[in-house]
């Protein structure tokens, strides 16, 4: 309960301190960042157990003001679920960057920005006020723009500029939407908004705000009509940042915000769900087809990311409890295996200096850990049975068929076949076949990088167990309930507030 503000305080404080004191000791920033993210991970684990014992959301009143006036921090089951994913990936990534970022100068700034981005994402997740969500959204975005440009090469700057220009327009749409919403409902608190809007009934202003929010958050999520920035930004960023962007940033800033705002505040209606399903299906196929033609590993994974996010959107769009469960499970899985894949491609680049599939080959003997972990990740992402990706895709396809959207189900299966084909291409070109001469002296990457990849691959391997009722009752089921209950969210929050 008292711990909630720590999700924001800790990373921000660490970021300020690193930029102030980081120069004194050589390993200070490494240790600080790794330990802070580890503490956050532990706190988020504690939160998820704590919240399940009491069912109702936890609310922290910042400054002691009652919510419609002040800013509440709200942690409910969905938030706890997302917090766990975000902080876990952040911990793994910060372990990985200790060695990887040695290639670059100004490691201090990297860690500062990284922690600011983490703080921004946590802020978005725990926020219970829509403008507050925007502020932290912007914090995470600005840190991520700078991190994409971190390498300072021409291509990287170009990608970052493209990302930033699109992101800035998206933020403006969101802010405009918030302004309209405020004028209409005269409140900014999410629970309060939800009640006011349902009392008002349908309203043209609210529809317009919905369109603005889909445009704005859609740009951050990179669903298909707005995906132009993604395929440039992911390859341009340093590998740990690509892993963060693909694994958690698009999800916490994009998908989380969309579901929180539309499911819990506006309330869903069939036309919105149909739009989501259509966008999701479009993303699956377009992303998959574009990924097939790539020779750059990171670019291939970037397009693959679009396609996998499409599954999540499709699952959410089905709107049945099964579909939402599948979507959330796939969100968890995708964070794990896509981060792992980006870390793998970073490891390959670290060892060989190239990402081009045509120049790679036969690395299996030189880099056994990378090869095996990436094999696991590829199998997980393509949905091969014992791995976690299989179960979530199966759930989504089942949900499609059960709710009579057989077309979309077939569409999802086609997307899955596409996924298998481009990951086979990746595996064959990178790890099998003859070893090119230039790569004779490739070595396995340092220990910490290996360790982080191994941890993630174990999670991928055991991820299917989340389906077991014992774990699922703690993890995905309660998160699903938050979305299924829809606008009851506000009643719950006011119930908690009135109890005190």
């Amino acid at each position: 309960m008292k711990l909630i503000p720590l999700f924001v305080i800790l990373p921000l404080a660490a970021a300020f301190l690193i930029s102030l004191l980081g120069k004194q000791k050589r390993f200070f920033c490494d240790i600080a960042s790794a330990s802070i993210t580890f503490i956050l991970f532990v706190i988020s684990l504690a939160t998820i157990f704590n919240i399940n014992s009491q069912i109702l959301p936890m609310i922290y009143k910042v400054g002691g003001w009652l919510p419609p006036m002040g800013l509440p921090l709200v942690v409910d089951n969905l938030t706890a679920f997302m917090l766990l994913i975000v902080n876990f990936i952040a911990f793994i990534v910060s372990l990985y960057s200790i060695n990887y970022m040695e290639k670059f100068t100004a490691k201090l700034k990297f860690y500062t920005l990284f922690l600011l981005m983490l703080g921004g994402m946590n802020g978005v997740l725990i926020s219970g006020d829509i403008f507050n969500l925007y502020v932290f959204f912007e914090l995470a975005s600005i840190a991520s723009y700078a991190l994409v440009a971190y390498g300072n090469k021409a291509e990287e700057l170009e990608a970052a500029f493209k990302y930033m220009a699109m992101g800035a327009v998206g933020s403006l749409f969101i802010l405009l939407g918030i302004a309209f919403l405020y004028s209409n409902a005269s409140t900014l608190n999410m629970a309060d908004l939800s009640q006011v809007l349902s009392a008002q009934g349908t309203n043209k202003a609210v529809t317009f705000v919905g369109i603005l929010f889909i445009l704005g958050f859609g740009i951050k999520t990179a669903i298909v009509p707005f995906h132009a920035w993604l395929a440039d930004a992911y390859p341009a960023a340093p590998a740990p940042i690509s892993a963060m962007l693909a694994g958690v940033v698009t999800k916490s800033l994009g998908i989380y915000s969309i579901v929180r705002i539309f499911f819990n505040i506006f309330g869903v209606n069939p036309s919105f769900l149909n739009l989501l399903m259509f966008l999701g299906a479009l993303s699956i196929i377009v992303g998959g087809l574009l990924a097939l033609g790539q020779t750059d590993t990171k670019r291939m994974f970037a397009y693959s990311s679009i396609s996998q996010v499409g599954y999540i959107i499709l699952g959410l769009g089905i709107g049945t409890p099964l579909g939402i469960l599948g979507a959330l499970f796939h969100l968890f899985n995708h964070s794990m295996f896509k981060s792992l894949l980006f870390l793998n491609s970073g490891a390959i680049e670290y060892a060989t200096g190239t990402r081009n599939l045509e120049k790679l080959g036969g690395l299996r003997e030189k880099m056994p850990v990378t090869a095996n972990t990436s094999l696991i990740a590829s199998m997980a992402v393509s949905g091969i049975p014992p791995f976690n990706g299989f179960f979530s895709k199966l759930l989504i396809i089942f949900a499609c068929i059960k709710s009579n959207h057989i077309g979309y189900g077939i569409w999802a299966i086609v997307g899955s076949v596409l996924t298998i084909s481009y990951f086979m291409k990746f595996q064959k070109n990178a790890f099998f076949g003859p070893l090119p001469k230039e790569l004779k002296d490739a070595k396995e990457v340092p220990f910490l990088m290996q360790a982080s990849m191994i941890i993630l691959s174990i999670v991928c391997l055991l991820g299917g167990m989340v389906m077991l009722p014992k774990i699922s009752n703690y993890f995905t089921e309660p998160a699903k309930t938050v979305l299924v209950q829809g606008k009851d969210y506000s009643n719950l929050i006011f119930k908690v507030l009135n109890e005190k």
Partner: protein
Amino acid sequence: MTYFLCLVLFCVGLYAIVRKRNIIKIIIGIVICEYAVNLFLVLFAYKINGRSPLYSPDQEITTMADPLPQALALTSIVIGLATTALLVGMAIRLYEKYGTFDITKINHLKG
């Protein structure tokens, strides 16, 4: 009418972002859009015959403009400055690398 003019201002900015080739012009478009959004917030706060949201020692509170959107606009002005600064920084680095502000010539990337 006032609201609509403000929306027109936003569209002018959007037009510049979408149609201009020069990076500086794109940044100018984003700045104009920021103006429009901040202005929207303040317009929504205005109360006819209201006073600014400052108390004065001898006066009772009668009508005041809504202080909350003004506080939000203050926040968003500063965020806008941060965005602009970072965009300009990137634009200048791009100019160094490519020697031009033309986005059709800055195209080393495929996507």
